[in-house]
């Protein structure tokens, strides 16, 4: 088990910066997620950790050891590929045994460890099969066993579940989490699926356009996103552009002047300055109410445009006077709170609102 440090790691393909000055500290035994939309550089970063790409600038350290110039086969990482990359000409057992053979592990020990690894992923009964005879989930388990059996310093997983169907994905999430907890491995897991990241990660890093936008525990990142991108990428959010008023007399609460009135906000991100900001409020924090039931955060007026009933939740899309749409999710909707076309009040608690630096990408 190692800790993995990335110091100002940069990778350029042609003129495009795939990874831009990334600095990360991944602790021993941590299940760390790299999360981001496709093309954000997360896979490139993982492949640099594995050694498949050289680092253009910066360093990658395993337990403080500089990995620059160390070829992939000498890094002792165990990688699980998106397409599993099982060798079709070797049986399941031979696939798993391969890394041990390379390490010249004695025959009896090798067999023992292969069997244990296969047991761990519950594939011991299919050891003699050819990979072509396995289902996607089974192949995934074998790929995992193959990466684990060598007792790697770090396990690298590149979108391991993206080729599986939804049900199997849920199952494998728990499986991987279980294995991680059992073995206490350092795991670096790349995905674009925020649910996967939120549900499994010890910590995660959100990447966008080659940069790390925010690093932290899932709850922390969800509740206090650093910027509009993170807020939007991890879960859904409603954004209200406005002006952060200078600290007033109202103590801890901040006030943001928006076209919809002054909203009270409990927190601001560290990067938000007085002046232009965006207020982010998650849909589940927005309540559809009558005006008399206003919460401390503020009140918005609008007309219900559509209602989607989902059983456990109900989604409202409310159009404000200037045409802006606001989403609200009500949990446990025993009775509808409004009808389509009805004028409603939207309200929220100030603790659930956060002021972020203004969205520079596209107006939002």
């Amino acid at each position, binding site marked *: 088990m190692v800790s993995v440090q990335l110091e100002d790691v940069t990778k350029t393909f042609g003129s495009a910066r795939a990874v831009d000055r990334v600095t990360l500290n991944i602790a021993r035994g941590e299940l760390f997620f790299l999360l981001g939309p496709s093309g954000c550089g997360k896979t490139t970063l993982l492949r640099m950790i*594995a*050694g*498949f*790409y*050289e680092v253009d600038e910066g360093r990658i350290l395993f337990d403080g050891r500089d990995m620059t110039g160390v*070829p*992939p*086969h*000498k*890094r*002792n*990482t*165990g*990688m699980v*590929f*998106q*397409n599993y*990359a*099982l*060798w*079709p*000409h070797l049986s399941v057992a031979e696939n798993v045994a*391969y*890394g041990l053979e*390379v*390490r010249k592990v004695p025959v009896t020990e090798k067999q023992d460890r292969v069997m244990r690894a296969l047991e761990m992923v519950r594939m011991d009964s299919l050891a003699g099969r050819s990979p072509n005879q396995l289902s996607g989930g089974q192949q995934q388990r074998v790929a995992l066993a*193959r*990466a684990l059996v*060598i007792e790697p310093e770090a396990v*690298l997983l590149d979108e391991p579940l993206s080729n599986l169907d939804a049900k199997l994905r849920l199952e494998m999430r728990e499986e991987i989490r279980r294995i991680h907890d059992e073995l206490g491995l350092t795991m670096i897991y790349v995905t674009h699926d925020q649910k996967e990241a939120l549900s499994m990660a010890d910590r995660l890093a959100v990447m966008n356009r080659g940069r790390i936008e925010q690093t932290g525990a899932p709850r922390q990142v969800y509740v206090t996103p650093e910027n509009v991108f993170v807020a939007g990428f991890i879960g859904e959010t409603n954004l209200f552009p406005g002006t952060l008023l200078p600290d007033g007399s109202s103590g801890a609460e901040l006030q943001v002047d928006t076209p919809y009135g002054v909203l009270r906000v409990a927190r601001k991100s560290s990067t938000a300055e007085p002046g232009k900001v965006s207020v982010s409020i998650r849909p589940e924090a927005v309540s559809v109410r009558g005006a008399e039931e206003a919460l401390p955060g503020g009140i918005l007026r609008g007309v219900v445009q559509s209602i989607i009933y989902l059983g456990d939740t109900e989604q409202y899309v409310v159009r404000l006077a200037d045409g802006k749409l606001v989403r609200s999710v009500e949990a446990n909707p025993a009775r509808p709170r409004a009808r389509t076309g009805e004028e409603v009040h939207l309200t929220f608690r100030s603790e659930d609102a956060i002021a972020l630096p203004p969205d520079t990408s596209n107006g939002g």
Partner: protein
Amino acid sequence: MGSKTLTPASAVFLVLLFGVFAVFLVYPVGYVLESAFYREGVFTLEFFRLMFTNPVHREAIINSTMLAITVAAVTTVIALPISFVMVRRDFPGKPLLNGLLLVPMVMPPFVGAVGMQQLLAKFGSVNLLLIRIGLMSPRDPFDWLGTGFWAVVLLSVLHLYPIMYLNVAAALANVDPSLEEAGRNMGASGFRLFRSVTFPLMLPGYFAGAIIVFIWAFTDLGTPLIFNYSRVVPVRIFEAVSDIHENPMGFALVVLVLAMTVVFFAISKKVLGSSNYQMMARGHVQGSSSPLPRRWVPVVWVSIAAVIGCALVPHASVVLSAIADTWFMTILPSSYTTVYIGRVFTHPLTLSSIRNSLFLSSLSTLVDVALGVTIAYFLARKRFIGRDVLDGLAMLPLALPGLVLAFGYVAAFSGSFLDIKRNPMPLLIIAYAIRRLPYMVRAAYAGLQQTSETLEEASLNLGAGPLRTLRRITLPLVFANIVAGSVLAFSFAMLEVSDSLILAAKEEFYPITKAIYAMSLRVADGPYVASAMGLLGMVLLATSLIVAGRFLGKRLGELFRA
């Protein structure tokens, strides 16, 4: 490995590869060019003026061009309708006919020529039969062979129509049926539809096939030699080999051939507008095939069977000659024997030639595997400066007739330790290897393309070094392709004609093909032993193709396309 950039070791390897090409491909061709254009250090076009003013050379150029055009035209006439029926219509027995159509390729046509002489002589089997049934006067038998032109055309066409068929059929299968439907929708039908829609669409594929056939016919040395049709360019070049240092005319003729092939391949590249490799990866667009009307089935069967039947006449004549005991002015041999087949394995010349061919072909195949897999690996897995050059060099032998390469070798390495007068074995091995290298590169490249790189990365990741990864993962995964490529390289090396005739200067080094040629010129049992050797070659090539087909499946046909 995982990274696309070169490690120092692989860079050294790459430099070596370029070195091989420089010495055995670029240098000989450059030497030929220099000798043709420079006389005592001064640039001159004198030899080219001579080439076109000297009646003997001019006649040879005209004859060869006419020969090649005729062969291309006749193969087109045969292959086009067959392709249409085979691609667009379904009928019982189609797969069988499809396979049988390719059978004539198992024998180089010059071997067939040895047997056909017996059939087409003035009192040969054909005329004797015609006289017997009263269609010909015994006083004035028709001279089928004549100057030799039509005999060469016949043998070449019967050998080459499968190549044309493979190309045309592939071109046709790749014509998107919806485009034809669109044409039909606009009211075009029948020939008009073919002319205005189908033909333009399949033209690139057809063109590729026609160029292969044209160049093949233009540069074939064996068949004109056997039919004693000396007034063609390849025979003139063959004769020029013996006084290569005194008469530069040979160089000029070789440059002519070279220029012609390069121009044609450049045009075909332009027309096709695609890389050489594409075909291996390209899926077969399933053309729309409709059932053939019942009453047409017998017509199609008889016509195609007739073509196959004709194409197999040379093979039959070789088989008959191989087992004929006495065959003197009778339609069929009057008695049969296996003596000549036995003699193949006892006669010192034939026996040593079999040994030589096995040796030469095995070694050249090993060279091909080593070079071809390495080149394919670099092309498929690495990014480096000069990648396109390496690609071009590896494919160049496709456009380089054996005749040109062999002539270049004789000239360029004369006096060096590779001089063919000392021992032609090294140059024969290299010539065979270079000639068949594109097949190997194509086969291996296709295998690598189909093999995901992550399979190699997974191995590296688990701690296996690049070499172990190559040995344990990459090579086994492209195994089928390598086997198929090497079986083809091996069998075609066994039956390589032009290079063998030119390079194997001494009897003790004759490979099978040159031994067949030499035996066919021996009195008494010569042609019979030559035919028996031809039979052996046929069996060998057929076996190899079946083996290669096992590994490559349907893609086998793609190796014969441009």
